[in-house]
């Protein structure tokens, strides 16, 4: 805080109160006795759905939280768009595209493209195997977004490997979120409970039909139901969300 000279005292007062706050935080955290709680039940029942407990919690037990999380990202992406003129009141303002064009060296140009493909493949593997191995939609999506950023840095926004325009990124993001929302609606329609994991059949008494179960079965040892599909939706959303933020902030005009 830069107060005027006469108010230098304020820094001291604020520091004292922050000190009091810090003391209580440290005190609370240093004598902390942890209880497993419902995590134990999640670990006990979770393997019936899919091997990776964290994915099971994210997309099944607490799948609704993940929906909220996805929408935070969407909100942030739209807000960043608003900041740079898309959708402000009184008509859109399109700023000059001032993407810095920096000549890449030959080594960068030669090696970036294959690296991008490898990274994308890695991201896809992480996404599709999210319920078996460590990983999932968020991680896979952000790995693919890294590849996008690499290609933008090396080849420029116009000529990047992905060839995605701003509009198609927006559409992709919307599609990703709609996949999530609609898979939740399937559960609502069939069983009466939103985001019911159709296909995993944890609760057979709900009487969800055979067809739905077969529709959402996924070729692996356990039957994860809709979790892999939710993963794909989230991956699309995170990928396009991060890419949009990157392009918007990257293209901000320098003054």
């Amino acid at each position, binding site marked *: 805080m830069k107060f005027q000279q006469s108010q230098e005292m304020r820094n001291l007062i604020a520091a004292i109160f922050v000190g009091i706050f810090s003391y209580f935080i440290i005190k609370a955290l240093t004598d902390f006795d942890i209880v497993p709680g419902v995590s134990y039940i999640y670990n006990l029942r979770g393997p019936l759905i899919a091997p990776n407990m964290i994915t099971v919690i994210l997309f099944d037990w*607490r799948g*609704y939280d993940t929906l909220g999380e996805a929408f935070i990202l969407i*909100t942030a992406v739209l807000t960043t768009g*608003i900041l740079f003129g898309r959708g402000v009141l009184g008509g859109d303002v399109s700023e000059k595209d001032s993407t810095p064009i920096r000549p890449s060296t030959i080594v960068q140009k030669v090696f970036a493209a294959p690296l991008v493909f490898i990274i994308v493949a890695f991201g896809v593997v992480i996404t599709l195997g999210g319920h078996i191995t460590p990983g999932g939609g968020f991680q896979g999506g952000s790995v693919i977004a890294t590849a996008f950023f690499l290609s933008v840095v090396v080849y420029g926004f116009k000529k990047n490997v992905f060839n995605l325009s701003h509009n198609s990124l927006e559409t992709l993001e919307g599609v990703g979120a709609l996949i999530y929302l609609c898979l939740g609606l399937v559960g609502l329609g069939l069983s009466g409970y*939103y985001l019911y994991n159709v296909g995993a059949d944890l609760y057979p008494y709900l009487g969800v039909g055979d067809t739905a179960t077969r529709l959402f079965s996924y070729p692996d040892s356990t039957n994860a139901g809709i979790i892999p599909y939710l993963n794909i939706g989230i991956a699309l959303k995170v990928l396009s969300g991060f890419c949009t933020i990157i392009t918007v902030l990257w293209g901000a005009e320098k003054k």
Partner: protein
Amino acid sequence: MNSELIPLMVIFPLISAILLNLMHGKDKVVRAYGILAMLVVLVVPIFASYGNHLFGAHPVVDTLPQLKISLSEVNLAIEYNFAFLQKALVFLLAAIATFAVLSHISNEKKVSGVYLSMIMLSIAAVSAVVMANDIFNMFVFLEIMTIAQAAIVIAVGGVSGYKAAFKYLVFGGVAGASILLGIALLLGTFGVLNISDLHNSLSGNMTNPIVLTAVGLIVIGWLFESGLFPFHTIKSNMYSAAKPDIAALLQTQTKIVLVALAIVLLRLFGGYSNMTAVMLGLSVGTLIIGSVMALLQTDFRRLLAFTAVSQAGLVGIGIGLGTRLGIAAGIFHAINDAIAMSLLFITVYFIYERAKTTEFKRLGGLLVQAPKLAFIQIIGILIVSGVPPFNAYQSEFRIIDATIQAGHPELGVLVILGTILTFVALMKGFYLTFLKENTTKIALGKVHIYNGLPTVTYVTLIILVIACVGIGLFPMPFYDRAYSVALKILVGW
């Protein structure tokens, strides 16, 4: 009891938000879909039946010894509660949001799909916060609400909006982290996130220092979300930087979240008197400072912004008393005041739209040009100041009654002082806008438009006045429900 319509109150606005964003640019489609979506948003809470909704169909299960929880059974997943209070709050939110959306659609030449989608996101977030019976889910949606509100302010453009949003997001980050740390401490100590389960585990545990730390942290978050004392300048800056018709929505959301979070706090830690003391003290400070600051403003929007903040303090006083009468009166006042302040914000919206300014030194003499508007605004001022036939009177009277019943008559005097100050401030605004001689001739150019108010917004104002009078004449159905909620909070859910 399972009701399929409960999640739709959140899911449908979310779907609409995505669709509106995708439609951005196609003007007619956005208009049509916006109106349609608002109709659905308005209708769903009316038809949804009371009950709980278990997400993912995960039921209550028996506990095991390895859990080290003293409960006999725990909820496995996220749960939504939907009862009369939730219905009233969600419907109120939907109604005010409908007015905001309709005023945007009918008064703007170019409709912004992104802007409407932000409004939808904030509706969904606040509805989720109201209904959630899961503390972490509540936190997630509070964050969505924070960013969406910042976006609504940013969309106005201009550097003052950016500054307001910057402060809002930085301190929102602090408050959000504070709430999450509180949740983490509770999760580590009790191992559950469901509020009913936490309530059961917490009973008799209120001397645990870690729990008390969590209480403090969540109370700090509550102060931010409801715009009470240290955060009142941030909130009022947000209200005054937004367009006035959206500021009506923002302050409604603030009051709804105030009530929702306060109910959670009281349910979880209701037995802890220091917490209610903190809530009460900071609310009193907000009431007085808010109304004093309102009196000192030179801009109508900022005046209303500080009035809205001080009225939130009034709601906080009711809830902070921690007695049945106080909580009931606080909840009742939150609903009444959200309606009344929206009315005032929308009248100022007209002045802002036509004169392109709300600074007092450039306004004046509008009574001749806009008699209808002046009449409606004076009614709004009377409502907010707690004049008998209207709804705010019923709740302010009950708050004062509750302070005396709770043994704090001084607080009753303070409430009266704050109300008087609010009245003086609002009348000052009315005088400077409508009665004082216009010296600058700024607003005279398009003056005749004042008489032909846009139909949609005119109807809006009429509906709001009717609502105020209706609740004012027949308060008992609402107050009784609020009282039963207060009883439930104190005795057991």
